[in-house]
Structures are given as C-alpha cells and as structure tokens.
C-alpha cells in the first residue's frame, strides 16, 4: 500500500515536472511573441505608416520592460525546447552555457526599455530609441541564443 502511494507520488511529481516544463516554454514563447506584436506597432509608427501615438509608444517600451522581468526565471535546467511544425524557433543550448551573460542581457533590456519609455516625447526621439533597442537588444540576443530550423 505504502509502496503504491510512493510510486504514485513519484509519478505525479514526474508528470507535473514535465507539465511545468511545457508551461515555461509556452510562457516564454508567448512573452516573446507579444514583444514582436508590440515591435510591429512601434515599427509602423517609426516608418510613418501609422500616425505617431506617444501613449502607444510608451506601452510598447513598458511591455518590453515587463517581458525582461517576467521571462528571466523561465529558463530552468532541462527546459531546452525543440522546433515544432508551427514554430521553427527554439532556445539554443548556449543559454545554459552562458546563463550569466543571458540574464545580464535581459536585465539591460529591461532598464534600457524603461529609460526609453521615460525619455521619448516625439516621433524623432521615438525613432532613435526604437532603433537602438532593436539593434542592441533584440538582434544581439537572437544572434547568439536563438536557433532557427526551416
């Protein structure tokens, strides 16, 4: 009886670990996807395809800042994901080989986004801030820590 209960408990822990793992993978992908959605809005304004809206611009930088904080704890050991039929992107093993650098970049992404949100006041200042964040944070991290499989 005790053995059965022990076995069930172990299995339950194992299953919930797997579920938790799937959970963090989904959570971080969702956060990044929302980053992309916000970036699209920002880019449309920066390119003059949409009228500039200071509130929308601030919202975008706020979402970036929030992402930086929320996504930081979502990379536990053994949570390397594989590309799927729907999503060719996956986390590179380099993240876990360089966790200090990875986490440091996220912190900087957050602080720079916060500073950008506070400093922008018009289209020109927005354009400069947006390009800066894109180049210094998005591309750099993706180049090193994200894999793509076609």
């Amino acid at each position, binding site marked *: 009886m005790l053995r059965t209960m022990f076995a069930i408990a172990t299995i339950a822990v194992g299953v919930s670990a797997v579920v938790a793992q799937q959970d963090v993978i989904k959570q971080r992908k969702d956060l990044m996807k929302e980053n992309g959605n916000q970036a699209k809005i920002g880019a449309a304004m920066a390119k003059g395809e949409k009228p500039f809206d200071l509130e929308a611009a601030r919202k975008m930088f706020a979402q970036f800042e929030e992402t930086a904080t929320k996504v930081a704890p979502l990379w536990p050991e053994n949570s390397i994901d594989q590309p799927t039929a729907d999503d060719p992107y996956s986390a590179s093993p380099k993240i876990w080989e360089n966790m200090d650098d990875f986490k440091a970049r996220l912190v900087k992404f957050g602080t720079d986004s916060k500073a950008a949100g506070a400093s922008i006041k018009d289209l020109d200042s927005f354009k400069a801030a947006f390009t800066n964040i894109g180049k210094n944070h998005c591309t750099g991290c*993706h180049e090193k820590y994200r894999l793509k499989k076609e």
Partner: protein
Amino acid sequence: MLVAAGLLVAGLAALWALTAPATVLPSPLPERTPDLDNGRTMFDIGGCASCHATPNEDREKIDRLRLGGGLALPSPFGTFYVPNISPDTKEGIGSWREADFVSALWNGTSPAGEQLYPAFPYTSYRHMRLDDVRDLFAYLKTLPPVAGRIRGHDLGFPFSIRRLIGIWKFLFLRGAPFTSVPSQSPEWNRGAYLVNAPGHCAECHSPRNILAAIIDSERFAGGPTPDGKGWVPNITPVGLQHWSKEDIAWSVKDIASFLDDGMTPSGDFVGGAMAEVVRNTTLLSPVDRNAIATYIASLPPRQGPRPPRKK
C-alpha cells in the same frame, strides 16, 4: 605506347595552361587620389570584416577594423581558414601593390600567382568598378596592422590542389565590372551594383550545384547556408511577397528599414548569419539602403529549392 604518352603530356600541358591564374598588370592603373570615404562604404557593404576580422565567441565583441583573419569556415569541401588582410607588411597584405589587390578581387589570384578559393567571393567582387576596388584598398591600408599568419585551409583531396581551381574558373567565372542599365533609375542602378558587386548577396541567397557554383537560374532564390546546417531564404518576390506563416508582403520601405535594424515586417528581429549582415548594412547611408531595397524588390520572381522537411 609512344602515342599514349604523347597524348598524356599534351593533356597535362593543356591542363596547366587552362588553370593558369590571370593577373592584372600594374601598367594600366593610372595615377589617382583615393576616396577613403568611398573606400569605407565599400568595406561596409563588402562585408570584409565579417570574415576577415579576428574572431570572438561573442560577435558583438569583435573589432571589425582588426583584420587579422583566423575565422574557420566549414564547407562541404573541408574547412577554410580566413587569411590576415590587415596592412601588416609581413603577415598581412601590407606589401601588396594596388594591382595585386585588383587581381585578387577581379580574378581570384594571389600576388604569388596562386589561385584563390572562391570561398572568397571574387565571383561577385569581379563586378566591382576599378575605382571602387582601388578606394577599398586605400581604406584597408589605413587600418591597424595585425601580426599573425593564419594556418592553411584544411581541405580533402582533390580540393586541396589549388591549381585545379583554374578549371572551376574556366567553367564558372563570368562577367566584368557592372555597367548601368539606362532604362532603370539611378537608384535602381546603385542598388543593382551594391547587391551584385560588393554586397555579394547572391553568394548566400542562391543554391549551388555539386561543384559549389551558383545556379544562375535560381539566383537569389535561397538555399542551404555555406556550412550546410541552416537555410537562407528566397529574397525574390516568391519569398518576400509571401513571408512566413502570416504570408506577409515586404514593401521597399520594409526591406530598407530591415537593413538598418534587423526587424522583419512580422515584428521579429533576425538572428543567425543575417544579423551579421545587418551589422554592416546599418553603417550605409539611408540612400544606399533604399537603393538596395529598390533593386531587391524588383528581382524577377524565382522558385528556388525547398528547405529540407522538419523532422
């Protein structure tokens, strides 16, 4: 028996003549004051630093002006080790004459008269105008000398025999410096030049045949990355008008701003090898990025190879 031996000698002699490296003689190069600003633009769009700068695990830490070489480029033929092209007189190109540099970029020949492997994309650089090549050389000479000769390439037989590249060149090396198309706008022509000559975009964005020459009919239609591990997208309208799952169409403005900040129209920021390209194109003038975008958007639609199925 004697006839067979005679034929063999004749055959080898022909092979020797066929594979002789072509060079540019110094006499035709007229006196000229170089334009170093133009040289720097050629350096940026030429992407010299991306291969020739002393490597670092962290690409963002690379000093793109220190061209000490050493990057390892894996390929189906073995591994190439990129040479030192800093102006160091002993271990870089500091003792090269201008004509030597033109020979290298136009004909793929070294000052010692050896064939250069087309991993160095002289197949594209040969379309560069003479003055641009000369300006680029002058600019390179202003960069810091870096000591250190890089090891030779690690290639399997028979690819290790340099002379045989002469046959490859005979089969595949074509074309001359770019000439403008009068029916097209100056902006289009500038873009066509930047893309096809110094930009050498087709070298990655095209599929290659079994001897690693670009399949002309599918130029820009995508193909495997040079190391064979990834995929480079189709940038003709077949690719750019139907981008990703969302089937997005890139506008000229989208292409131009992408070359500045690496952002696709889906709000995604590119990683991989293209991030390195954007690191170079972001240094160009907005006019030049616009020109490139105008040309790319005008490419004839071409169906390329399909990427291998996901497992």
